[in-house]
């Protein structure tokens, strides 16, 4: 039964992936991609990766899909002529891709048994992190350096997105598409407070159960964008000091706590065992703000000159 479900999921995903890549109509391809993302979310549950499932649901299909649909809507105005690649290139590409896929499949099927794993090391070192969820412990303790650098990637990506704005738009707000529909406004008034509570709760529980700053931040971002769309909130000007403070607050606190580790625990990015959990919560609280604001603004795009907003 469960193997049947897995077979069905895998077949559907391959079909949707094929459609995304080869389908004639661009919009249908994007729709197929969104469905692919949703299925991938279910697959994460099937392979026992609940934290990943939550992240996938947050950014994978959903936000990425929305971003691509918005791009498609704006590109429709431009010439959407799609040319075909030459037959020679197509054959070469097909051979290369098939070769890679076959080699990968062969290697995956011949990996060592029993599989090498870090589960024993992880469980042995979980207690000093003060966390109950080993995925959170990986992100916030054992591989905290990755997580810190990844937050800088987000900041740089946002700066890069802003940097494609016209010069005249610098300092202004990103374009907000407002839709003053009655039902939407009602939803936008009702959902954000709920979303904020859920978002913060998600972070709080992530220490022991799946969840985390990233998922929490995404919920906040979605709520904010919903409110913007209903005309109840404004996107901030990119020159705003408050905005920039909100964006760097998370990584800055992370870095500060990391440096404090030199004094408190003898190492950069180390936490003294007695206060590890409160310190990690201290990092995650501003982090969810920074992540939420960066994600919302990455979706909103670069600032536009005042007249066009």
């Amino acid at each position: 039964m469960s193997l049947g479900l897995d077979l069905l999921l895998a077949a559907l995903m391959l079909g949707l992936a094929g459609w995304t890549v080869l389908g004639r109509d661009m919009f249908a391809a994007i729709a197929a991609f969104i469905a692919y993302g949703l299925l991938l979310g279910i697959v994460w549950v099937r392979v026992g990766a609940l934290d990943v499932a939550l992240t996938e649901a947050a950014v994978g299909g959903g936000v990425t899909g929305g971003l691509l649909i918005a791009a498609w809507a704006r590109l429709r105005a431009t010439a959407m002529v799609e040319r075909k690649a030459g037959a020679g290139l197509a054959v070469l590409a097909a051979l290369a891709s098939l070769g890679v896929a076959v080699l990968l499949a062969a290697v995956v099927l011949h990996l060592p048994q029993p599989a090498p794993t870090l589960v024993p090391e992880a469980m042995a070192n979980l207690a000093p992190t003060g966390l109950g969820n080993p995925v959170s412990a990986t992100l916030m303790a054992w591989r905290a350096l990755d997580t810190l650098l990844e937050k800088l990637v987000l900041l740089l990506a946002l700066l890069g997105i802003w940097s494609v704005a016209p010069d005249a738009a610098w300092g202004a707000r990103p374009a907000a598409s407002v839709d003053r529909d009655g039902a939407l406004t009602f939803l936008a008034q009702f959902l954000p407070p709920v979303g904020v509570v859920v978002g913060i709760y998600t972070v709080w529980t992530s220490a022991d159960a799946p969840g985390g700053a990233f998922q929490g931040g995404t919920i906040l971002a979605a709520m904010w964008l919903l409110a913007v769309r209903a005309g109840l909130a404004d996107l901030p000007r990119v020159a705003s000091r408050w905005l920039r403070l909100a964006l760097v607050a998370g990584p800055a606190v992370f870095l500060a706590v990391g440096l404090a580790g030199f004094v408190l625990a003898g190492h950069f990015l180390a936490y003294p065992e007695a206060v590890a959990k409160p310190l990690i919560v201290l990092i995650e609280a501003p982090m969810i703000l920074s992540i939420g604001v960066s994600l919302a603004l990455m979706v909103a795009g670069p600032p536009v000159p005042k007249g066009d907003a």
Partner: protein
Amino acid sequence: MSADLYGLCGAALVGIGLYGLIVQPHPLRKILAFNILGGGVFLLFGVFARRGAALSLPGDPVPQALLITGLVVSFAATALAVALLLRLAAETGRARLDDE
């Protein structure tokens, strides 16, 4: 068994994404193909995590955490690519990578 199944699925997704990236000329199509390819790579990470399940854990937490970091980075890359593409289209009225 189902880990092997998803492993094969991941390998196939890598192939499909790679093919689309090379063959499809439209930048938005390339961005889509990049995400399919990324999905395949992430699925392999998930499969390796699953294979590493031990003690009471349903999967090895380390590759799962890497996967979360990877998803975030991949989203950031998609957002930057879309911003560039839209600006290019707004400037030139076309969305192409070549000059013809």
